[in-house]
């Protein structure tokens, strides 16, 4: 981590802690964010020059309190939550002076962001903004949404939390598991799915991968007994371990099967394995542990030189049982193709709902690959065309154009 990253991480960490503390007490995320916004950007600049202060939360709080008092004095529009916010800031100041410090209430922000009353599409952005202080414009770019629309949706979600009086307390033990699933799903959405599953992962979310890993680590630290949180962390660490092998020297896409495993990070893979082992001791299997186990089988290639596709297929079978997402079903078909042949895999693809599969790029990429293997050249080229047309990543598009080109020229050479 370079100096800039250390400063940014420290500022985000303190920001998230402080925002959690202030908004849990004032129940007004937007007002707490306003109070902290200037302090946070000042911290990013100031700490880069003079280093991270000994007590970063105290530093931020002093700056934020000044702003709060200023707003309270001059405000044109009355912020209803202002007294509660000022009171919370005073409480925070007392806590910070104590040896135990502010504590970590960021779990509250994570759970409230993924609350059932909050629209599923805004959960990930809400988490990224509240827990990590990432601005709406950057989130919008990563999710390919209009920045104005993203800002509006975030504002609306925060208003909903305030108006509906959604409680900030983390869920009790009776509904912890379903609520945690929603949190983990939202974190995974920030990571980007299907990177390795088939030749067709969407890379546009790469920009937030470190943030997603950070969030997963945070959840594991705060809920150490939840195996699915560790499963999610293990899954992302396994994918991160292969980061350097995904593109060759010229930036071209390299599919998982062709990756040079000497380029994989052994330490990240080992950490992933350790997380997964700890998770499995709880004896509660779940979607993310299964996905991590799939990546774990792939990681074995670095050790024993081959991929146990039968094991991958079985794990995908289990995954599709509990989480039949389009991505998982296409991933299973890709594994079945290796374990039992292209025909069995194509049969699985036929079962997918046509309407959703029609614009799902990995579906077409896999279909093209399977048809090519079976020698159905014309159909394969048509599927390649569709996969190319649906690609939003230049490296992936070029890779598919290359494959399609090779297929077209090899079929022309072949005698009829």
């Amino acid at each position, binding site marked *: 981590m370079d100096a800039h990253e250390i400063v940014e991480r420290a500022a985000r960490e303190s920001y998230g802690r402080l925002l959690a503390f202030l908004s849990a007490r004032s129940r007004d995320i937007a007002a707490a964010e306003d109070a902290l916004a200037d302090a946070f950007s000042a911290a990013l600049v100031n700490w880069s020059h003079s280093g991270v202060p000994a007590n970063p939360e105290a530093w931020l709080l002093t700056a934020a309190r000044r702003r709060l008092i200023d707003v309270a004095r001059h405000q044109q529009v009355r912020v209803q939550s202002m007294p509660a916010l000022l009171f919370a800031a005073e409480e925070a100041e007392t806590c910070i002076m104590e040896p135990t410090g502010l504590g970590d209430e960021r779990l509250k922000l994570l759970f409230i962001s993924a609350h059932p009353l909050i629209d599923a599409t805004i959960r990930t952005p809400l988490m990224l903004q509240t827990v990590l202080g990432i601005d709406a414009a950057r989130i919008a770019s990563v999710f*390919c*949404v*209009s920045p104005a*629309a993203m800002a509006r949706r975030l504002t609306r979600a925060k208003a909903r939390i305030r108006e509906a009086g959604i409680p900030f307390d983390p869920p009790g033990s009776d509904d912890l598991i379903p609520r945690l699933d929603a949190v983990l799903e939202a974190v995974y959405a920030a990571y980007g799915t299907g990177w390795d599953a088939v030749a067709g992962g969407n890379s*546009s979310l790469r920009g937030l991968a470190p943030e997603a890993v950070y969030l997963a680590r945070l959840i594991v630290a705060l809920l150490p007994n939840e195996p699915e949180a560790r499963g999610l962390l293990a899954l992302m660490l396994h994918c991160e371990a292969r980061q350097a092998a995904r593109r060759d020297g010229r930036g071209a896409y390299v599919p998982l099967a062709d990756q040079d495993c000497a380029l994989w990070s052994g330490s990240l893979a080992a950490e992933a394995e350790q997380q997964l082992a700890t998770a499995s001791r709880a004896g509660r299997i779940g979607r993310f542990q299964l996905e991590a186990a799939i990546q774990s089988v792939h990681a074995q290639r670095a050790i024993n030189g081959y991929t146990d596709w039968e094991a991958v297929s079985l794990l995908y079978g289990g995954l599709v049982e509990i989480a039949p997402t389009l991505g998982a079903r296409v991933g299973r078909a890709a594994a079945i193709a290796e374990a039992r042949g292209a025909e069995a895999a194509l049969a699985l693809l036929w079962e997918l709902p046509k309407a959703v599969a*029609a*614009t799902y790029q990995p579906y077409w990429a896999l279909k093209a690959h399977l048809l090519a293997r079976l020698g159905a050249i014309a159909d394969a080229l048509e599927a*390649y*065309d*569709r996969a*190319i*047309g*649906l*690609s*939003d990543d*230049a490296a992936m*598009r*070029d890779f598919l*154009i290359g494959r399609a*080109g090779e297929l077209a020229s090899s079929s022309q050479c072949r005698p009829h």
Partner: protein
Amino acid sequence: MHYSLLFYQTPEVFSARADPEKRKAFHAAFIPYVKAMHDAGIIVAGAGLEKPDAATSIRLGDSGHHVQDGPYADTKEQLAGFFIIDVPDLDAALKWASRYPAEPGFGVEVRPNLPEDRETLLKTMADG
């Protein structure tokens, strides 16, 4: 909703059209893109445009028409083509725009069209 996807290019990208290799490479990505949109049934209209120096522009001033050779706006990036697509919302329009096989030097502007039916259009104009 109808949205216009307006494709912009730098002069370098326009001149790359003369290079058969680059032209072929672009088409290898662009034709599947158009086909995917076509098969999704969202294309209302669209066209690629000749280079900006093929344009002729008319400005209306106090002294009447002033006709000049070249594009209307003197900017670095010039319009190279457009699609009008029919999709449910801006998110969907942006999704399709993000699939445009762009290289550095390309850009896409996504803009909602005014309503196409006469009644809604007149109402929008009156409100606006």
